[in-house]
């Protein structure tokens, strides 16, 4: 389109009043206000503290490999929540979406003897379907996502135990499809070309990282992902900008369900069985990773890198306190406290940065 207007600024009746504020650079925050850098610093400090108190903290087999395995699971769990935090929604059914998907996978391995990858695909589809259902209910009824997913989680708790007791094998499937134990036990250091072996990284880590990269690409570059973020930023404006808002809500929740299913799969690999208790520990970690990493609960902005750091921080604290012989109960208290402090510090840092920015 060629619109002949306003050849130069000189002919424009300028908006002088807005000039002073516009010519200033945008109120950029100083680098130390970046929550990701702050998290990284805290992680480094904690690693130094824990490893000086207990040298076994840096032991590859005892600590580092299990940590990476746990981290992979909780990263994907965090991504599952992040997928709907982008909308300003919540998915309290992440645990049970993982559980019912894990049931589907276990059932496929047990009764259809499908290969590992095919069962995974089946489970992901189940997760996506349950997530899409949640999204559809939310957009069709306009009921708050908190309430819808809370109710859905409750319903699924019953359904999962019913499924295991009636058409499952009690509380877990015994089937171990080919490759499951390899995926569980091996690290890349078990694969050598001549004298050169891989790093001590468990095989499931690339799966989690691939998921993270795909989610990051989705929200950063793809049209659908960006439109989900715009919907989270301002749903009314999104509708009035031509974005199919209901469809984006369903898609975000379907993505959340898919990632929950993947997390369920990874946990089943780690623990060695597709069992009824998969997902039970997912709810708090699903919020911790994204929220510590700077993803807003109000929607419109997500940080995948922050989610990785947030999940890592939680895992470092958990492992470190564990090595210092804290009991499970103590562990929960301290993790809760550390996270409260971390979040408060984050807020303080942000306020300080804003003040400095507004003075500039």
């Amino acid at each position: 389109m060629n619109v002949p207007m306003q050849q130069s600024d000189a002919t424009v009746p300028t908006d002088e009043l807005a000039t002073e504020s516009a010519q200033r650079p945008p109120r950029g925050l100083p680098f130390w206000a970046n929550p990701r850098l702050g998290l990284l610093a805290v992680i480094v400090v904690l690693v130094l503290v824990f490893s000086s108190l207990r040298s076994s903290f840096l032991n590859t087999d005892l600590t580092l490999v299990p940590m990476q395995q746990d981290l992979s699971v909780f990263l994907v769990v965090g991504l599952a929540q992040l997928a709907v935090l982008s909308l300003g929604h919540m998915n309290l059914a992440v645990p049970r979406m993982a559980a019912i998907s894990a049931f589907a996978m276990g059932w496929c391995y047990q009764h259809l003897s499908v290969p590992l990858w095919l069962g995974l695909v089946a489970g992901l589809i189940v997760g996506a379907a349950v997530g899409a259902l949640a999204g559809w209910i939310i957009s069709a009824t306009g009921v708050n996502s908190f309430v819808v997913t809370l109710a859905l989680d409750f319903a699924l708790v019953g359904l999962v135990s019913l499924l295991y007791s009636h058409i499952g094998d009690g509380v877990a499937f015994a089937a171990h499809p080919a490759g499951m134990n390899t995926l569980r036990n091996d690290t890349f250091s078990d694969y050598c070309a001549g004298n050169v072996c891989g790093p001590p990284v468990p095989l499931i880590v690339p799966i989690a990282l691939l998921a993270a990269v795909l989610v990051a690409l989705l929200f950063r570059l793809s049209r659908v992902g960006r439109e989900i973020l715009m919907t989270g930023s301002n749903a009314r404006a999104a509708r009035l900008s031509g974005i199919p808002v209901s469809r984006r809500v369903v898609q975000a929740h379907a993505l959340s369900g898919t990632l929950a299913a993947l997390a369920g799969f990874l946990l089943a690999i780690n623990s060695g069985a597709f069992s009824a208790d998969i997902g039970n520990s997912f709810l708090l970690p699903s919020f911790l990773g994204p929220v510590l990493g700077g993803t807003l609960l109000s929607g419109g902005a997500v940080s995948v890198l922050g989610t990785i750091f947030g999940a890592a921080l939680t895992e470092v604290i958990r492992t470190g306190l564990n090595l210092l012989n804290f009991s499970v109960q103590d562990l929960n208290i301290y993790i809760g406290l550390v996270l409260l402090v971390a979040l408060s510090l984050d807020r303080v840092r942000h306020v300080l940065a804003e003040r400095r920015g507004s003075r500039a």
Partner: protein
Amino acid sequence: MTFIAEQIVKVFPGVRALDRATLRLEPGTIHALLGENGAGKSTLIKVVTGVYQPDGGRLLSTAEDGSLTELSFGGPLDAQRAGIGVVHQERNLVPAFSVAENIALQAVPKRRGFVDQEAMRGLARRCLDRLDVHLDVDRPVSSLSVAQMQLVEIAKALAVDSKVLLLDEPTASLTGDEAEALYTVVGALRDQGHSVVLVTHKLEEVFAVADTMTVLRDGRSVAEAQPLAEHTRDDVVTLMVGRAHADLQLDSRSVDTTTAPALELENVSTAQGHHNISLHVRRGEILGLYGLVGAGRSELARAVLGLDAITGGTVRISGEPVRISSVGQALQRHRLGYVTENRKEEGVFLDQTIARNVSVTVWRRLARLGLVRGNDERALVEQYREQLGMRISGPTQLAGQLSGGNQQKVSLAKWLAADCDILVIDEPTVGIDVRTKAAFHELIVGLADAGIAILLISSDLPEMITLADRIAVMSEYRIVGELDNDHRYERTSHAVIRMIHAEIAS
């Protein structure tokens, strides 16, 4: 009590909303506060009623013996205690409460910690009597007409002993008879020694009832407490509009009438209550849709865009009957865009970057294999930054950091990026200072000159008369008339206002 707001300054980020505005209110007068949209009227009202604290100037009251008291309002309650009451455009009554409960809301008579029902009714009756209004004080407010609610609001202000009463657009949603009744009440208040401030766009009413006036332009008081008898309508309009505004003189554009109209509505009715609406706008033409607030203009636009149901009639685009079910469809199939009325709520994404705000409508086009490249987006921003004169620091600045005028440009840019043939532009210059407004007017004319069909919705009559080729007048969800605009304020505004009044009277 004489109340004076002296040399008031109020600055918002990017805009000096009030720049040494003075308002002087004598007891026993009806004082009109005049100015165009964005001139600073509502900001001044908010300063006077304690909602905003001024950045400069002072608030004074004079007692009968001539002594001055400086006032300082920490909040609305302080202003109320100082005797300043306000009746807002948006009603502040509790619908489920009775008339008496609403009137006594801020001055509840109590006995032993409980509400004294009899005293409360007595207070309400006394207040209504002073207005010479007869209403059953036990009726719930929800059962009252709009005009009656307004009277209850005034009575409510009297209940807390207000000496100064501000009425913000009191007749916007009243019929002619109701407005007359209201002004009888206002006259009675004046005779009882109150000073009444009337904020309205309706100059007829001002000349009929007010004694003095203050005119705001661009945040300044260009006329302070002057007797209205010394002024003509033309003077007042010139004071309000100023020279800068009248500079944009347009000749009537020649529009190609041989082709089918770009957008045409024939006998359209909607679920919202529109009836038999017929309009058309051709490429290169600006059709103004004028009406008072609540006349159903934006609602019509929303129905055309598929956000509300159309229950009858035909919408045609380039001669073809269409059924539009969403904004996305309007955009992709018909190149019809809608620049919304409330830019902060509906027009821009405040917490997103300018790049995303501008490109949100065109990701479908920009995407390759579903992925959007940042460079394409930034190029788009640079293009419109120049074309629209956007004052921004860069494509990654957040839209929420911009001034109102620049946000509006961002909101417009997203539809220009989408290459629209038809644009519905709803109240484009509300709350924008005069200079940016003039720039916006040039922009809109430029768009029409480039061949875009524009349906301009505005309740700012001078703006309408400056921009539109034809003006369709809407009142109570009907089109009550249409006229060719000759860009002469006096004649056209009379004609438009006559149309609305004729409709209300019938």
